[in-house]
């Protein structure tokens, strides 16, 4: 046994360290299409202090450390590009504190969205958080680290905008508090009125530290939730429809999806408009606002609301949406990945055209869901392609389609969300050189030995 293995056992106990082939194999890949690379060790810490010790050891041994939630970002962000230690954070799973009056919750670095949702429903049914549609094992911290989006993103911005404080183990081992919690016992603000230092950690994919606690803002959970479905076959109308719905400031979430299967769906755009209310009157009023807002399209015969049967409604309302996950197996292949540019909503028609063009060029099955962000400042548009894990050729085609989609999105002025290491390079190549230098300096300052998730955001 190596010294590092023994030292890790000393820190977390032998049940929570593995250097066996099976764990190295599994933690060396994710469900997406990036090339696998195995870690040397998989470790499951339980406390901030254990993480501190692991980081100190890693500095001493100059071995990489890669924090991992559920590995569901699909773009290989948790694949240890240079081996080393993968930290499976999911044993740090507690919900530490909930401040009902200041409306925030503090969770540990590996608490899952599923557990948080269930906890709120049970104990604080009038509060909610912005639940993404990723499977429920996705972790709250990692979702914020990659600037995820959820059910409240249309109203409140990226899920990372809803962070209200952090505790971080720096790459050099110090514990650091960020936000109001750095000067106060309360975790109500991630920055203001102080300098907002969360920017040193969110979006960095674990390359600048390991988040061990995160404060998250909670929002009112209204008693009733409903959904309406607007259908149009004209992609060019979608941006205005998104903006008009956003203008009402009344919709919970706006998601536009398109897919060619079943055939009757092809060429149609399904605009799901979610709303919440504390009374039937409130819901009715919001429904009416949605109707009135989109009436002109009905008048011009360009679209209309479609009635939703209870059978259709249940999966639409589910949080998270299981249908999103089911896409992986629509062709019995077990795989899908999406490139998800963040871009102005006006790009929707061009993106859809590209989505279909790539699917046809590479002979792939596709789908897309676009979520409006923050009332319409931008959207997340997904170029999703499914692939069969048992068919290397199809996997290769899907990867090529995603690479092209990423290039295209950048050309169109989009910014790639949760970029894989190649896409990070593409973006850094286009980045303002001074910004890139600043990123490099920050990284060097925080992580002098370059141990944290190396291969990612290598801003040289």
């Amino acid at each position, binding site marked *: 046994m190596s010294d590092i293995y023994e030292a890790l056992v000393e820190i977390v106990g032998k049940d929570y360290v593995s250097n066996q*082939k099976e764990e190295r194999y599994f933690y060396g890949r994710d469900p997406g299409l990036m090339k696998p690379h195995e870690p040397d060790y998989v470790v499951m810490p339980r406390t901030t202090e254990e993480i501190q010790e692991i980081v100190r050891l890693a500095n001493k041994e100059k071995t990489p450390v890669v924090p991992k939630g559920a590995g569901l970002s699909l773009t290989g962000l948790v694949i240890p590009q240079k081996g080393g230690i993968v930290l499976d954070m999911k044993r740090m799973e507690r919900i530490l504190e909930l401040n009902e009056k200041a409306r925030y919750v503090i969770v540990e670095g590996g608490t899952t969205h599923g557990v948080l949702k269930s906890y709120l429903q*049970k104990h604080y049914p009038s509060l909610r958080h912005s639940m993404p549609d990723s499977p429920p094992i996705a972790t709250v911290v990692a979702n914020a680290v990659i600037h995820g989006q959820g059910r409240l993103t249309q109203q409140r911005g990226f899920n990372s905008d809803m962070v209200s404080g952090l505790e971080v183990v720096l790459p050099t081992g110090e514990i650091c508090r960020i936000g109001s919690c750095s000067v106060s016992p309360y975790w109500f603000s991630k920055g203001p009125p102080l300098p907002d230092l969360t920017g040193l950690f969110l979006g960095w994919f674990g390359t600048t530290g390991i988040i061990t606690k995160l404060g998250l803002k909670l929002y009112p959970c209204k008693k009733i939730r409903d959904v309406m479905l607007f259908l149009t076959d004209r992609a060019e109308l979608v941006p205005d429809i998104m903006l008009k719905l956003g203008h009402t400031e009344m919709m919970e979430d706006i998601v536009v999806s398109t897919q060619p299967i079943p055939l009757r769906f092809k060429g149609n755009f399904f605009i799901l408009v979610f709303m919440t209310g504390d009374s039937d009157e409130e819901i009715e009023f919001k429904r009416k606002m949605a109707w009135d807002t989109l009436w002109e399209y009905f008048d011009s015969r360009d679209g209309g609301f479609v009635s939703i049967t209870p059978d259709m409604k249940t999966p639409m309302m589910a949080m998270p949406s299981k249908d999103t996950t089911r896409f992986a197996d629509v062709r019995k292949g077990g795989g899908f990945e999406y490139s998800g540019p963040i871009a102005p909503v006006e790009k929707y028609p061009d993106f859809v055209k590209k989505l279909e063009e790539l699917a046809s060029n590479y002979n792939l099955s596709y789908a897309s869901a676009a979520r409006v962000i923050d009332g319409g400042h931008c959207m997340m548009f997904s170029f999703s392609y499914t692939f069969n894990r048992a068919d290397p050729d199809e996997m290769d085609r899907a990867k090529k389609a995603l690479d092209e989609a990423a290039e295209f999105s950048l050309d169109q002025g989009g910014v790639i969300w949760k970029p894989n290491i190649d896409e990070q390079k593409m973006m850094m190549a286009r980045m303002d050189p001074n910004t890139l230098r600043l990123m490099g300096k920050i990284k060097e300052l925080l992580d002098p030995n370059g141990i944290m998730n190396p291969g990612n955001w290598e801003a040289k």
Partner: protein
Amino acid sequence: MQEYANQIHRCFRCGYCTFPTDYSYFNCPSYRRFRFESYSTGGRLWLTYAWVKGEIEWSEHLAEILYSCTTCKNCVEQCPMKFASDIVEWIVGARSDMVEKSKIPLEVGRFFEAVQVYGNPLKLPGSERGAWADGTKRYESGDEYLFYVGCLGSYDENGQRMARSLAELLKEAEISFGILGSEEKCCGNEVYMLGEMGLFQLLAEKNIQKFKEHGVRKIVTLSPHAYNAMKNNYLKFGADFEVYHYTQLLYDLAKKNTIKFSQNQAKVTYQDPCFLGRYNKIYDEPRQILQGIPGIELVEMERNREDSFCCGGGSGNFVMDLLAGGEESPGRVRVREAYETGADTLAVACPSCMIMFMDAAKEEGLEDRLSIKDVAQIVKESLLLEQTT
């Protein structure tokens, strides 16, 4: 290689299967116990696929991962994919490939050997199989039911208590029944789940033949495991018996007022056995029996029915206990959960749950605060006196 090998790549490793319906906490007993994702359903399926593809070699550790699944079917209930209902069959298929190649954990090998040599996994003599049953008669042609007792009911002290309670109740209710005693053999459910298909077939065929020789038409089982094997997996070997779990029979007797209850003050929570609940959708009968007893207050654990948390004993683990060790072993987790309901009694309907929980309650120091009783025993204690005399 079997059918699973062409399908298993379809798992997306999304992790839905690790949760119950409300996502409150992890519900795959093996993931809950070990916490490496390799021990989750997705981990098992991906590693098995890697083995099928030749990307990893067989190892003790791989076999241990595959065999730490208790076949509880939480994943089948929760996986959102169309193939969900096949997951456990895929795991069993992979196990049977390992069995064929003689690449199985030592404990599993010992389990098979014991069943083969002794007719039970506890390595006890077949001649003693009916020793518990003082006064219970052998099955005779014309009896309405064969009471199939199973290995734990026959040999384990706690299982025997269950078997006696049930036998006495059936006598009380004047049901015509009998047992096979030393002629009874292991039902093979665990052997099936552990992937020894040849041995399972042998056991199934022998049992079916024996039942037919005796002219058996209806079988009532003590264990949900035997109920599952006989009801579902014996069919392809020519079984044509009616099979009941004892809770179904007791429910029927209570409904018809054949058994009547007096007061029994207790606060009871009920454990859904995987092979009764998720496998065979019997959730209501045991509850209705308990609720029908005056004075019994039935309280639910947070995870119940389809979301129930396995005791950790499935797939032969009531003997091998591959998930043992530490506070996170499923049995210990579950007795804590039962205790947290405020119940004084944890009711079970399966001898495997019974022995797992008896051990777990001791380890948790709860043995004086939480009685573990089987539904038949609770019913027996609650019978109107005139019936019990």
